[in-house]
């Protein structure tokens, strides 16, 4: 019996199979890593507890009550602004409108803009603002509430600066950040809402985050 050709055939086949596996594995590895999870975390036994957005209850431009449950099973983008602001807010809203245009037909994603000037920004004013911006209230919620509640959730949950400051041009200081929140109330991205490039990154990250839920 001549064993040699037989064994070499198997050797080649085996090698090909191995190469295939390696290639496949390397292709699988090329998939993008999951987005980071922001904030402090605690490890309790096998579980890691991440920073999450605290409970909130606000009112939107349609006088509807908006709570965490409004965003149950949704991804959302949050920011802080006020309608009479002339500095960074109009730029933020120009950029958020781009985000709106990209997600308006995607039921998975919502937008949440908090006014940090609730004394001036009444429900009626927010309604007019949203209407003039030409956006739908079930996709983009403009909310108002107690000033201290809004400032507290900004600082402690979203790590965004928001406070009154009479020394500032329009009377407030606040960050221009857009925050990407996942379905587990965790912060998965922070973006400069005044920079077109950073907002492009946000739109890419929304798609990435949605993929995480598809593969689960």
């Amino acid at each position, binding site marked *: 019996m001549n064993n040699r050709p037989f064994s070499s055939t198997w050797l080649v086949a085996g090698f090909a199979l191995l190469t295939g596996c390696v290639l496949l594995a390397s292709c699988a590895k090329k998939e993008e890593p999951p987005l980071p999870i922001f904030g402090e975390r605690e490890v309790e036994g096998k579980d890691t507890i991440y920073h999450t957005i605290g409970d909130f209850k606000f009112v939107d431009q349609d006088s509807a009550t908006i709570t965490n449950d409004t965003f149950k099973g949704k991804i959302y983008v949050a920011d802080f602004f006020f309608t*009479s602001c*002339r*500095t*960074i*807010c*109009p730029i933020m*809203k120009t950029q958020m409108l781009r985000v709106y245009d990209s997600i308006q037909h995607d039921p998975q994603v919502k937008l949440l803009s908090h006014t940090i000037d609730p004394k001036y920004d009444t429900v009626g004013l927010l309604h007019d603002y949203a209407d*003039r911006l*030409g956006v739908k209230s079930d996709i983009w919620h403009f909310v108002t509430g107690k000033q201290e509640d809004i400032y507290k959730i900004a600082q402690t949950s979203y790590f965004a600066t928001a406070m009154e400051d009479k020394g500032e041009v329009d009377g407030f200081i606040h960050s221009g950040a857009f925050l990407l929140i996942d379905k587990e109330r965790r912060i998965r991205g922070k973006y400069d809402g005044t920079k077109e490039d950073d907002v492009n990154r946000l739109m890419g990250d929304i798609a990435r985050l949605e993929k995480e839920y598809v593969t689960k």
Partner: protein
Amino acid sequence: MSQNKVEPQRRKGAKENAKRFALALRLGAFAVQTALLLACTPSKTDAPKTLPDGSPKFQQYYVHGEELYLRYCSNCHQKNGTGLARLYPPVATSDYVDKNKDAVICLIRNGKSGTLIVNGISFDKVMQPIPALTDIEIAEIATYLYNTWNRHEGIVEVQHVSKVLTSCDTIPQ
């Protein structure tokens, strides 16, 4: 430009390399010198874009006006002057801006509230006044507005602006 010319020449034959390199360097230096000279001499040719009026005064108004526009106006009205939806009216293609130069001069200083129809669309957000702007700065912004986006109305003189600003109450908005 001159640097790019040096590179391909260096890669050529080995013999005359040094000679050519020296020549290219000299040429490069000359080009840089010329460019510097041109840049430092105010002339029509080195203006960033074709301006309707090449006079130094116009250019000063226009260039400073653009800076001021970007600092005080473009957040809402956008860099390209298109405005934003029905929130902030456009200033580029705008029948209101076209027809109401004096009123525009006044509202830059004093702000504007109430309904404003621009291109047939109703706007109704308050525009805050910008009291910090001086007469000459308003003249510069107006010069920018009225010589950009297909407008070629020439310089808006500060004397005119000062006169208009004293009589804003009487100007129909």
